[in-house]
């Protein structure tokens, strides 16, 4: 059972560390990337690192990055891969992951002013990729490069999205299955993202998951969100909704290679959620995990 790191709940992480088995961190927040050509490129935060080392002595730390922008068409961020490789060696992360999306592009204003890393702009949100053969081809080469560079299995997380992309050639399940098969990566299956998408785009989450090859799932994400007019947002703002718990049971019973389930909460919502409810969330995750572990192979086959 894993919990994500946010500085706002450091005391919880230290005092209640018996309630979860590993800490998942977004490594990018532990450094400042000064941009291409800068020396040093990355300034690592000694204060935050000291906290991380203290946690590392208690439990495994898993890297879940946000900075790769693996789907960016204009360039591949190899410097980021090298930095992740260094951190994987440093922390011994058993696997590492990023998001199946892009956020870096060249926009005219950024290029004109030389902002960002060599005139790039950062959308600040995970932008959906077109599900096409061309995208698969671009991703496959990059994933292979990541796998060669970082000495741990690489996973990508299914994205949350609010629009259907023009030029999509396949559905999300087929895209994820093909990507894993052709590129050799695994999945962080974010069940709350699927729940969000199902509500916003109008499909059945269970049916969509039924089409995913669950042997590719290595990690599962849970989290909460909130309504915003007709939309439901993946805001990591509170407890996991009931339908997502049902999806978790469904997936745990059928995914043979899952190594961990992580509850994600944004630090700014911690005070509102409170220690007690966060703790209850972790307990419920462990109960679900234990149900899955306790199942005999025959029973699992029956569910499949």
């Amino acid at each position: 059972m894993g919990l994500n790191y946010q500085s706002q709940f450091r005391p919880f992480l230290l005092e209640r560390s018996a309630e979860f088995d590993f800490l998942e961190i977004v490594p990018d927040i532990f450094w400042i990337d000064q941009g291409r050509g800068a020396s040093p490129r990355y300034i690592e935060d000694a204060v935050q690192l000291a906290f991380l080392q203290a946690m590392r002595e208690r439990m495994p730390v898993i890297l879940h990055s946000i900075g790769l922008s693996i789907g960016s068409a204009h360039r591949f961020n190899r410097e980021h891969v090298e930095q992740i490789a260094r951190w994987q060696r440093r922390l011994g992360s058993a696997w590492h992951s990023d998001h199946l999306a892009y956020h870096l592009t060249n926009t005219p204003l950024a290029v004109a002013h030389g902002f960002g890393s060599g005139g790039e702009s950062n959308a600040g949100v995970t932008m959906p990729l077109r599900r096409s053969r061309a995208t698969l081809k671009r991703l496959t080469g990059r994933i292979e490069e990541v796998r060669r560079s970082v000495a741990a299995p690489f996973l990508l997380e299914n994205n949350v999205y609010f629009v259907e992309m023009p030029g999509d050639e396949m559905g999300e399940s087929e895209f994820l299955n093909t990507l894993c098969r052709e590129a050799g990566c695994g999945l962080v299956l974010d069940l709350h993202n699927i729940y969000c998408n199902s509500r916003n785009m109008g499909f059945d989450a269970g049916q969509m998951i039924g089409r995913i090859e669950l042997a590719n799932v290595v990690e599962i994400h849970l989290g909460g969100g909130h309504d915003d007019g007709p939309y439901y947002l993946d805001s990591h703002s509170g407890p996991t909704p009931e339908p997502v718990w049902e999806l978790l049971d469904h997936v745990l019973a059928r995914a043979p290679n899952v190594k961990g389930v992580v509850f994600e909460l944004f630090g700014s919502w911690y005070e509102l959620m409170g220690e007690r409810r966060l703790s209850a969330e972790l307990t419920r995750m462990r109960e679900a995990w234990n149900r899955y572990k306790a199942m005999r192979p025959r029973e699992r086959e029956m569910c499949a």
Partner: protein
Amino acid sequence: MSEAAFQSAFVRLVTDEAFLNQMRSEAVPEIDGLSEGEADGLKALARVPGLNVMRKLHLGFRLNKLLSMLPLTCRLLGQVRLAAEARAFWEMRPSASFYFLEEAEAFAVHLQERRNTGLRAAYLGDVLAYESALLMLKRPRAASAEAPVVKVGFRYDPQTLLLMVQQGVPPRRIPRAHVELLGWADEQGEVHWTAA
């Protein structure tokens, strides 16, 4: 058709209001690298309600950087002035990274410049100088780097002023004072202040 051109234009739909409005108008601008069909696809995207959600998330992400890194400055400005200044800042400076600190530092510079070009807000100079110093002290540094010490000059009693802003009370009649404080961060990152 260039995927890079498409991605760039799609990001602009989310981050660039003027471009979005152009794409929602009848006359779609010509975009290098995009076919007519691609441009039509983007035009259709510009009108999808879900795009407004993405835009809201993008703006929320940027605003959150300012609110969390410059809380007193934002509170002092109030919603209307903050919205106007943030909008002007964003129009000039696209989001360049995920980092909160960089954006907050750049916004602090923007406000400083705007103080010289017409922005009027009582006590802003003191509050902005204080929070700019905090940003400098919060900047990640390697273990080998020497911890910076920052001097901030106040024209008004800082204790009364900062407390009132922190409590959400519009500051009024703060006693004038000529105070200089030295700030530094300890090994745990906690910031301390002492009289210069």
